[in-house]
């Protein structure tokens, strides 16, 4: 039985600009991702992988083609509706962590819950749970300036999962981290994927990092060049 697709792309295209200045970032991408997958998206700069991630994350709309997220045709949604999808179903982490400065870890993590209208007590409860599950419950009062890179990324991950999304989008999550911290963060992501069933779609240009994912998709010139499932997934102790 084929499990229902979490994400289904059909002929997805994105063109920037118009006329002679038009740049075709994506030229008709077909892709199918099922729930619970851990996918790495790789490719040289200008390949369209960032555009693909933006579209998958509902941050942008395609020029043509279809994008079904859990059966919902995202290409036909307006700005507000896409915001709501991001609010309820998606989580994001970035290379630069993108935490709010001079704000405590707890307040950073509970931010999505504020937009969801949760009460203060509930927000604190869920935020603390999230911080515990990424391994830094004791850092809840620290501001980003008082945390290491790895710790900041953990806070960002906690923020991304606090709303219990079904998909996590990671944009070069270890780009600013050293190799041992990279290992820690990737282990954390793998754990979240296998234990909580959160689907993870990650952009990276490092093979080591990509090897943590089960499936690697290569993008070049706006099209998918290859799409392979790894037989063995990297794990380090």
């Amino acid at each position: 039985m084929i499990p229902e697709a979490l994400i289904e792309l059909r002929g997805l295209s994105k063109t920037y600009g118009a006329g002679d200045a038009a740049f075709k970032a994506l030229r008709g991408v077909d892709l199918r991702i099922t729930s619970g997958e851990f996918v790495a998206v790789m490719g040289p700069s200008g390949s369209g992988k960032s555009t693909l991630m933006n579209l998958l994350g509902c941050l942008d709309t395609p020029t043509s083609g279809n994008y079904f997220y859990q059966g919902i045709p995202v290409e036909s949604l307006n700005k507000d509706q896409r915001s709501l999808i991001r609010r309820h179903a998606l989580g994001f982490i970035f290379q630069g962590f993108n935490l709010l400065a001079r704000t405590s870890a707890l307040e950073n993590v509970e931010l999505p819950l504020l937009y969801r209208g949760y009460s203060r007590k509930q927000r604190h409860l869920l935020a603390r749970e999230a911080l515990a599950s990424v391994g830094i419950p004791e850092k809840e009062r620290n501001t980003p300036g008082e945390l290491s890179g790895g710790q900041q990324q953990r806070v960002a991950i906690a923020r991304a999962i606090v709303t219990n999304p079904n998909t996590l989008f990671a944009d070069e999550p270890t780009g600013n981290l050293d190799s041992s911290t990279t290992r820690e963060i990737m282990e954390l992501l793998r754990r979240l994927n296998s234990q909580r069933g959160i689907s993870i779609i990650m952009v990276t240009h490092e093979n080591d990092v990509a090897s943590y994912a089960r499936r690697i998709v290569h993008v070049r010139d706006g099209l998918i060049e290859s799409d392979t499932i790894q037989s063995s997934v990297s794990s380090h102790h």
Partner: protein
Amino acid sequence: MFWNAFIIALREIRRNITRSFLTVVGIVIGVAAVVTMVTLGRGATQVVKAQISNLGSNLLILRPGQGWWQNAPRFSKADVQAIRDQVSGIRALAPFANANAPAVSLEHVRNTDIQGTTPEYFQIANWKLGMGRFFNDTEVLEGASVCVIGDTIRKELFGKDVDPTGMKIRCKSMSLEVIGVTAVKGQGGFGDDLDDNIITPITTLQRRLTGRGSKQNINQVMISGLDGYPTAYIVADVSSLMRERRGLAPNEDNNFSVFDSLQLADAISSSTKVMTSLLGAVAGVSLLVGGIGIMNIMLVSVTERTREIGIRLAIGARAREVLLQFLVEAVTLSCVGGIAGIVLAYALCSGLAKVVGAPFLFDPKINLIAFVFSAAIGIIFGFMPARRAAGLDPIDALRHE
């Protein structure tokens, strides 16, 4: 949704408290200036009104000549009697004459205003008795050598704690016995000391001090109208009567004037009001400048927080929620500034009221208006930056430095 926006806004303000302070300084000063000016202005108006009402309400003053100091034939006893007989609506009327002369007591001398009149004058001019008694009609008839003195005269000629009844004052060639002291009145509407005078029967003044002479030596008639009776009627009646008695032809101007103290009070208070409004408007301009300040700082803030706005949008904030956040920030800032301005105004008024001599009348209405106005400034001038924030594209915003 509003409450959440409010919490987020408060956190943002707290995050950068120095900038928040600098943003609202314009509003604080503007509100403080407006509230201070208007409050002090109202206080000053009240003072002037009170001082003038000290003179007596419904008070009309008939004087010879146009204007206060003109030379023209004075009035006679017969004129006064005619007014009493023929003009209706009069509660009391008194002839009045005065002269400036030195008054001498046992130990002191003082130049003062010696006023001659009849007992009705005390009622018309709203004098209350401090010590002793007023003189009566018999004493006027006799031209008795008695006088009622003001409290300043009492203090200056006899001593602060002395009861001077029974003692004598010498004015020029005559000796007057003090039979009473008026209660303290204070300052008049023109800054003069109302307690610096000696009041004696008009007959005494005429015979002894200004010399007998022409029948016409009354230089003022004071008239008090009945409550509720329009003073305009009395003015008209007195005017036509005087024109007749002084033989004026129809095309001749009046050679006398009737002054209405109530009109005087209104005139002064309305000009004070105009002044206050003008000052308030000028201060209002500074409020406007404060609003522009808010707008500028908010615009800078939006630019600086572009990345952060991108994060909020990515996390799932809708455009209108971002708009609301920045708008609430601007309004919170301006309201806090408004409150600070009102507090500052309170402090300024307490201090300045003593210097200016005006009482400090706290009016909640003005403060409410000032507060609402500062909130409005926040909404108006915060809207454009908020809209700019809400219109950002999350991808571009996230990429921003």
